């Protein structure tokens, strides 16, 4: 007799997807409302980190992954938000450092 397949609980994935859609809409609204405010970059950096973390945690199942994979994902997801904040507050200094 063929065993009956178990049902997969997709609710965590659905929740993650809905959150990603919501954060995308929120990011767009912030971009429109705050336009040229310096701290828009800080808020966008937070949203970028959260969206990246959600995909890594829920879709790739980062927490169950090998520590090397976990660390690679965490480092990659953190890089752009940190650089966004650094550029927002220390852009001129960064430009001086990066001038040949």
């Amino acid at each position, binding site marked *: 007799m063929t065993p009956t397949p178990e049902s*997969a609980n997709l609710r*965590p994935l659905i929740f993650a997807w809905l959150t990603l859609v919501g954060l995308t809409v929120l990011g767009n609204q912030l971009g429109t409302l705050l336009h040229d405010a310096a701290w828009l970059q800080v808020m966008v950096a937070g949203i970028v980190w959260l969206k990246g973390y959600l995909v890594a945690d*829920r879709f790739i199942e980062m927490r*169950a992954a090998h*520590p090397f994979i976990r660390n*690679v*994902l965490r480092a990659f997801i953190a890089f752009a938000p940190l650089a966004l904040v650094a550029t927002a507050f220390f852009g001129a200094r*960064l430009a001086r450092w990066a001038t040949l």
Partner: protein
Amino acid sequence: MSTASLNGLDGPIPDASRATSGRVPGNKGIWVGICCEFVEFLVLFVVYFVARAHFPEAFEQGAARLSRTAGTTITLLMITSSFFIACSVATMRVGRRGASLAWLVAGLLVALGYPVAKWLEIQWNLAQGINGDSGIFFTVYYYLTFNHLVHAVWGILGILWVLARHLAGGYSAEDYGGLEALASYWHATDIIWLVIFPFFYVLA
């Protein structure tokens, strides 16, 4: 705590006994590729930030000239196809092969919307007089987004290959490493787009 409960999923995750040392989602080969992909885009991100630090006005004005609708559409296509493919893995894990196939086909169809949306966006850009020579912002924009499109096309080809194997009965609840490897690559490509999107479409 088992890896299944850790992730809030009911199905068993293979190699759960190795939860303390961790498992490799998919296979080691795909993670070598993903690490190379991450390094490549980290270099491109550094180029973006250096250019942005040197020409802040060009980047603030440039983003306002792009179609945010196009960027948002691509973002929604990427996260939705990523979600569908995650569902394909989750259902295969519990042995629901038909459901897994259906989720994978849905993921492919949504993923195919990305190159279509990008083509429409480029046509719109050209109609507005925006090309690769329109200034530093647009040079960086075209270089980064075309690069991402190339990686996404590789992912779409990967989905087609995995779909063919899936249709041929190549995966089971005990052995679905190829499907999970493809899913990992697609999720990584999704994460990269989620970083690129605000760079060019939100931070005006």
